[in-house]
């Protein structure tokens, strides 16, 4: 797990108030929504807001790719890195 991936996993825990969940419980390839961690659409909105604040990036709400970016911690980390590099 990269530092950024760990950082995002912790952000998910803190933002969504996931008591008793640790970074180790969210491996980079675990699906975040539905089966897997079990997040839902309200969590997605909350997480998008937290990511934008934390990494000073913009996430277009109408982006067709958003769903893919939000699949796992690994895809989120790749997305954040790409946005920061842009």
């Amino acid at each position, binding site marked *: 797990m990269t530092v950024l991936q760990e950082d995002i996993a912790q952000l998910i825990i803190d933002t*969504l*108030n*996931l*008591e*008793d*969940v640790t970074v180790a419980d969210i491996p980079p390839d675990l699906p975040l929504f539905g089966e897997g961690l*079990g997040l839902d659409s*309200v*969590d997605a*909105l*909350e997480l998008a*807001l937290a990511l934008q604040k934390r990494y000073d990036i913009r996430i277009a709400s109408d982006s067709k790719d958003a769903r893919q970016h939000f699949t796992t911690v690994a895809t989120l980390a790749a997305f954040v890195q790409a946005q920061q590099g842009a």
Partner: protein
Amino acid sequence: MEFHIHQLRAWAPTLDTDEAWQAWAHHPTHLPDNNEQPSCDFLPPMQRRRLSRLARMTMHVAWPLCGEQEQLPFVFASRHGETPRTFALLSEVADQQPLSPTQFGLSVHNAIAGQWSILRGQHGESVAIAGEADTFEHAMVEAAALLSDGAPAVLVVIAEERPPAAYDGWIDDVPFSYAVALRVGGIEAHAGRGWQLRLESHQGTSTPAAWPHALDFVRALHAGDDTLEHPWKTRRWIWQRIP
């Protein structure tokens, strides 16, 4: 209105057992409120994640009063609602920050009643009310209406949370956070532990009750008092124990 109190459960910081409430009822004191909250560990963490402190207090007191397979009408009553959430959202507006979708979505008075319905699979009526200092009695009026409409029992929760300091001078009737759940039924089928509630008109000024009305009722139950009077503005609520 006449009620049989099937069960009552109350929570306040450091007061969580019948014995503790019994002791408090005999020597009611102002409790320090250090943001303690019930753990609600009967719920998995993923279901707890959107429960605020007031929601946890509500779930904690209401949970054991409704059977696993039971559907009960639910009355949620709070004069002030979730002031910490409201204050946090307003602060974000003032700072021109984007609002948290979760916080915004839950910032309605019936959010906790909705969470109760989801977590307990309740499909029946629920009511969320806010009144004045006599919100407790208004909640009981709602319960009486549901009972007379045919409900065998009604679950009533009165919950208040100590507001942020910014509300000092505005909110003066929440000495500490508390939640009281009552499971009530009509009086016919049961003997004892009955209470009658009457409303009379009230003129002139009188000192408001020393404790929030719901807490005063808990106190009276434990202390064995037979009557209670809760005057507020033009209304005088009289609670009388039915022997």
